[in-house]
């Protein structure tokens, strides 16, 4: 079966999303990470818009616009500023070395494809095959949060996970109901705002954004 042109684009974008996820996993520099995050948002917004256009789901335009505004413009800008203002070191230390992380990532992708296969087969949407990719994106972002040592990178991982989720929503079921999407977006916005406050507090208290300072609360 041949897919229509725009669906091929969506699949391409999905692949791009996955690729960006991998790139983020292997990226060592914070600024690079933010850029990649912005690109991921852009890919997500584009794919949402294309799905909206091709299926006539008009509320998805809203969703795409929100993504564009928040994840491509506002947040990267905010993070760039933050990085500059807080003067965070550029290099990102990782818990495990990058090749190993990549290997685990590949295993995760296979796992999620495998998991999503029976589900996507019964999906009625045209974009069903991308559900596995969405799940992989979520898990890869999770992996990134685990392997990074800086507070900012962890948050970037978190937001990237959110991207994966949005993509899942779009691909599996043409997006969530609008109210929900608005709510989620609001939460993300507030969350980032709170985080911003947090970064300053952490910085003020620990003189660094390195998470190794925050390992005091434990069982002795």
């Amino acid at each position, binding site marked *: 079966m041949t897919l229509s042109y725009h669906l091929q684009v969506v699949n391409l974008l999905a692949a791009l999303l996955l690729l960006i996820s991998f790139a983020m996993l292997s990226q060592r520099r914070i600024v690079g990470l933010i850029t990649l995050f912005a690109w991921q948002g852009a890919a997500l917004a584009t794919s949402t818009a294309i799905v909206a256009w091709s299926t006539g789901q008009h509320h998805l335009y809203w969703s795409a616009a929100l993504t564009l505004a928040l994840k491509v413009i506002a947040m990267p800008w905010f993070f760039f500023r933050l990085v500059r203002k807080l003067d965070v070191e550029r290099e990102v230390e990782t818990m495990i070395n990058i090749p190993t992380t990549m290997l685990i990532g590949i295993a995760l992708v296979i796992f999620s494809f495998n998991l999503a296969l029976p589900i996507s087969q019964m999906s009625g949407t045209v974009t069903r095959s991308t559900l596995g990719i969405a799940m992989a994106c979520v898990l890869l972002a*999770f992996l990134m949060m*685990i392997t990074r*040592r800086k507070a900012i990178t962890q948050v970037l991982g978190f937001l990237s996970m959110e991207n994966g989720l949005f993509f899942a929503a779009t691909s599996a079921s043409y997006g969530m109901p609008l109210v929900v999407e608005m709510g989620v977006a609001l939460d993300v916005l507030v969350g980032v705002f709170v985080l911003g406050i947090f970064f300053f507090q952490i910085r003020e208290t620990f003189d660094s954004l390195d998470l190794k300072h925050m390992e005091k609360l434990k069982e002795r």
Partner: protein
Amino acid sequence: MLDLIPLQWAWGIVLYWLLLAGASLLAQRNAALITAIVFPLGALGALAIAGVGALGLAGPSAHFILPIGLPDLPFHLRLDALSGFFLVLLGGAAFGVTVYAMGYFKSMAAEQLSLLALWYHLFLAGMAMVLLADDAYAFMVAWEVMALSSYFLVTTDHKIPEIRRAGFLYLLIAHVGAVSLLLCFGVLQGGHGAYTFDYMRSAELTPFWASAAYLLALFGFGAKAGLVPMHVWLPEAHPAAPSPVSALMSGVMLKTAIYGLLRVTFDLLNVQLAWWGTLALTLGLLTALYGVIFAAVQSDMKRLLAWSSIENIGIVLAGFGLSLIFYADGKGALAALTMTALLYHAINHAFFKGLLFIGTGSVLHSTGVRHMGALGGLIRYMPWTAWLTLVGALAIAGLPPLNGFVSEWLLLQAFLLSPGLSHHYLNMVIPVAAAAIALASALAAYVMVKFFGVVFLGQPRAANLEHAHEAGWPERLGMIWMALACVLLGLFPVQVIVWLEPVVRLLTSQTMTNAGNWLMLAPISAERASYAPLIFFAVIAAITLLVFFGVKRVYHGRVRRADPWDCGFPEQDARMQDSAEGFGQPIRQIFESFMRVEREMPDPFDRAPQYRGDSRDKIWLLIYQPIADLTAWLSAQAGRLQHGRIHWYLIYSFATLIFLLVFTR
């Protein structure tokens, strides 16, 4: 409707006690109000509940449902012969103790006293409710209220760290026991909230589940009763409590465990297996011997009594086991005999142990000393206390014609009548068990001679003892009541047994036949065995008097006073008498391998050297310490989960997710 009256009264008395508990909290400023009004009123309640119990014993069983409890499980109350009997035990012993408490607590600070009176009456109410409860929930609530209030009573003197420790250990073991009982009721219940005892009676359990329920009950009730090896709390908690409380705990509270065990095993479970009995018998004998050996080496008088309680509980449990063996073997008459013996011993123990504890209370009150090494010669300063305590000591030592002898006699008879059981190994084991009982009761005499002799006889071992004052009248009245009960229970066993009949019939569906007459106790037939304490007593009294007056008449009654014989060493003083450690030394030497002796050696240059040797049991080291170590180890392992690194926390989350995804595929 008429049948309900005693039960309603019993519930009324429980409420009345609760009311008194509340009232004592209000009387926080006025100590006299509490000792002069609240305690006497509480004592009246005890007397009333004993009366109600006696009515319940004689009358048919009655049910009653209260409008409180869980929605589908309101409190069910029931008064039948078994609970009636234990109510009599509770009321009888509590009356004496509470009368005693009127005087004993007089010098306590008002604030503390009001709390004490609160918990005291709550404790009484809790025990009564345990006996009245007819569903699992009410039973457990009452059970734990009893534990909790007694915990607060034990820790009355919470400034002393040892007492806090004792209270903690007590409540912990009580709680573990209670959870085990919960599980037992979980087995017994029929599912979907059928928690009433009536339902449990009619339920059919497979032998496996019945055994599980029995074992859980044995563990749970055993923890409360002080069955070895769950006894560790008892020698700590009983001495820590104020004496009237120790008396109640030892005399009555331990019996509620026996009550529960009887209720579950004979009443609620409808299968009884012989090996259950063997197990209980073995544990009971072990407990009895263990308890009495440790009682013999104690140097704290209340701790000594606590260990002796363990012994007595062991004897009761051995009786329980034997009864179960007989019952499971279809020997109803023998089961009835044994049941009678164990119930008899239970009520005896309530009175003599209560008496001994309040006796030590008077000693403690007037001397402030619990350590026997600093006591002595008190019979001269407190004759009432001494003589009344002597009654208790003789009774607990199982000497005729007092009550302790009757129950042990009945139990030994039961052992002697055992041949002919269908299990041959049992025929062999039981005589050995009888030997163990005999050994325990002989050692009990040793313990009591030590207890009474060291505390009340001889020369005062400390100078301040000469200022020891006699107990006041309420105390004396309390002790007289308990001593009188010991004597009467000893002299009129036939009447007591008739009175026990409904209980025995309820449990074993047979009664113990008394082949003797009103004077003579003859369990199976007069040919086999008989005992007539009244005659016995009359003859001894007659001969004693006859000889006394005869000697006086024929010869003379002249007396000269002189110094005691000093064996040519004129510097005899009170320190040369046996200390408590010294008196127990032979037993310690024989059984030292079971003990962990903590010695306090005197300095060689000490002019007045004091040796202290505390013999603790090794069970703590053998069983509890490893459990504590294991717990600590596991907790250290669990602590490693929480090591503070957020990455690892994320990994847990991630791994859980992956695991579940794989697992649910």
